[in-house]
């Protein structure tokens, strides 16, 4: 990396009497998980390249409460939500972008009733808009002709009916998009949602991520494109279990675009 990318916090913006154009909500996975941090960094590089004036909350960011809510702990969820809303409203945040569909869904759909009203955008839609506005260009290059299958995250797809933005981005990479048998509104869950990420699965005859990864491998794709850090983890684990690590990669769409641009 030639130049140092600065990641300003909302606090720094306010100290200069400014408000950021958009707040990048990183989420717990993007902040702490080594694999997901790569997605975060890739996305930041893209924001930087497109000249987006963004800020993060940094140490002031806390869990949106999604896993607590889906686990049934409404009390903890609302505590988290109200603390976050206090911070966000304090910084007069109007627009939020996030690379995590769980954070996206919670911020967009479940915060308004608790006093948090923001325009919330998933990073795939955000990137699509940046390209449409000419702020970001992508050349296929690296991915030209590669077979890519896209796994719909439940909280982006069915939950919020965003199916096209991620697919359009993949097509912009000149890649060959191949669909799995179950896709879009019929897409199969990776197994992480509903707080399952943080518990052992109930007894059964197969793990859900194995079922889904097998389906992705059946397409013969070189790359499994993901748009959610948790799906990414689940599918990566599935690839390991299938011993296909050398052959098939699981990549977030932001990572693919950043890498196509040699960022």
């Amino acid at each position, binding site marked *: 990396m030639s130049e140092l990318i600065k990641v300003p916090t909302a606090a720094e913006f306010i100290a200069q009497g400014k408000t950021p154009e958009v707040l990048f909500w990183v989420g717990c996975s993007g902040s702490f998980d080594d694999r997901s941090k790569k997605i975060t960094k890739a996305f930041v590089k893209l924001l930087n390249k497109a000249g987006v004036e963004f800020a993060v909350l940094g140490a002031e960011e806390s869990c949106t409460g999604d896993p607590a809510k889906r686990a049934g702990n409404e009390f903890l969820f609302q505590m988290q939500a109200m603390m976050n809303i206090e911070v966000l409203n304090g910084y007069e945040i109007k627009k939020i972008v996030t690379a995590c569909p769980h954070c996206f869904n919670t911020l967009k759909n479940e915060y308004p009733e608790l006093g948090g009203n923001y325009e919330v955008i998933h990073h795939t839609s955000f990137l699509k808009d940046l390209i449409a506005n000419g702020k970001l260009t992508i050349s296929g290059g690296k991915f030209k002709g590669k077979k890519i299958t896209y796994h719909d995250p439940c909280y982006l797809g*069915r939950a919020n009916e965003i199916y096209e933005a991620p697919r359009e981005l993949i097509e912009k990479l000149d890649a060959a998009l191949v669909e799995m048998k179950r896709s879009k509104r019929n897409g199969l869950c990776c197994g992480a949602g509903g707080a399952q990420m943080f518990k052992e699965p109930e007894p059964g005859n197969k793990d859900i991520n194995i079922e889904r990864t097998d389906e992705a491998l059946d397409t013969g794709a070189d790359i499994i494109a993901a748009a959610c850090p948790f799906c990414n983890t689940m599918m990566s684990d599935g690839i390991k279990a299938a011993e296909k690590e050398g052959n098939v990669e699981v990549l977030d769409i932001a990572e693919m675009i950043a890498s196509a641009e040699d960022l």
Partner: protein
Amino acid sequence: MEYIPQIIFALLLIAGVGYFTSNIRKMIRNIKLGREVDRSDNKKERWAQMARIALGQSKMVRRPIAGFLHVVVYVGFVIINIEVLEIIIDGLFGTHRIFAPYLGGVYDFLIGTFEILALLVLVTVVVFWIRRNAMNIKRFTMGELKGWPKNDANYILYFEVVLMSLFLIMNATDFILQTRGVEGYAHAGEIFGSFPVSQFVAVFFENMADTTLIVIERAAWWIHIVGILIFLNYLYWSKHLHIMLAFPNVYFAKLTPKGKFTNMEAVTAEVKLMMDPDADPFAAPDPAAMDEDPASLGASDIFDLDQVQLLNAYTCTECGRCTSECPANITGKKLSPRAIMMKTRDRLEEVGSVINKEGEWKDDGKKLLNDHITTEELWACTTCNACVEACPIGIDPLSIIMDMRRYLVLENSAAPTDLNNALTNIENNGAPWPYNQMDRLNWADEL
């Protein structure tokens, strides 16, 4: 003497409709055991949704084979019912094909259409039976469909075969009697109705005497209408209630994004109080709030579910599309969204039968949770919404699963241990993992 058949008919009609009405009132009473929920918003959108999904069957045809077959039976059912109206009037007034003189050519067209539909329904029902009993389709053979649910499904198919066959036999014999100009059937040389299907059935009756034909025609007519009344009353005990309830069920279905889960107002009030620095922890509680029974958080029984959820339970047709798309069920977990709906209805009926017997609800020592739905089922859900998306008539099994999880966690503190650890981490560090919140921006140093 000549009015006796009409009197018998009227009595049967009153008994049939009366018993049905009393059961539907019980059903409504049972649904009202649930919490009230306001779905009076967005009327226009709700009607449009009902027209599209319930009337227009738009989600049924997402599975083209089953969807197409269902549309045939559905259209047949709805349209043939126009004929039932004529049968009822004929029965009450002792007339013969009362609509014919008023509708003329249209009448012939209608009866012809009914006959073709009846034949199509017969064929479709046979295919349905084969799919259900001989093709080993998992959603029709799995555990929860053994016993009554399987028999129920087959009884409905047998009913349809009998009713459609009687309709065609009735028309076939009627056609011959009209052609022969037999008294009571003749209309000055005119033939009422057209018989594109039953004219072929008529071949079997051609050599019979007038008196025999009259007996067969009358028998078919009576058994057909009595059969319809029996079928009407069978509905309440059957998964087949969906032919009525699908409409209100779709109307009241959730309109907001599927990912948006309900906000618990009771919790909001408490959290706000906790976070308010000016709140007086020793203040006397609001006397109005004191009068109310403290509602339990989440759901452990049908009383804690809302009325739309209970309507969902009565509406479920047990088709199993939800379960066949459920990631937990596909991978062998105990959870089946269809079973969640079936068990909710079973429990609701169990509560209802206590009220029928005692005149009011008396605790029977059972609950929906544990006695019907186990925690293992509830904790297997990934909240992926596949079941909600799959349901052709807007049932939301996920909302019941969520309400019951809420009860487990908020009232019983009974989350699985590893999940509890994650929740504790969120509480302490603002992340489900044991990382320090202060380290949230460390990734920026690696850029």
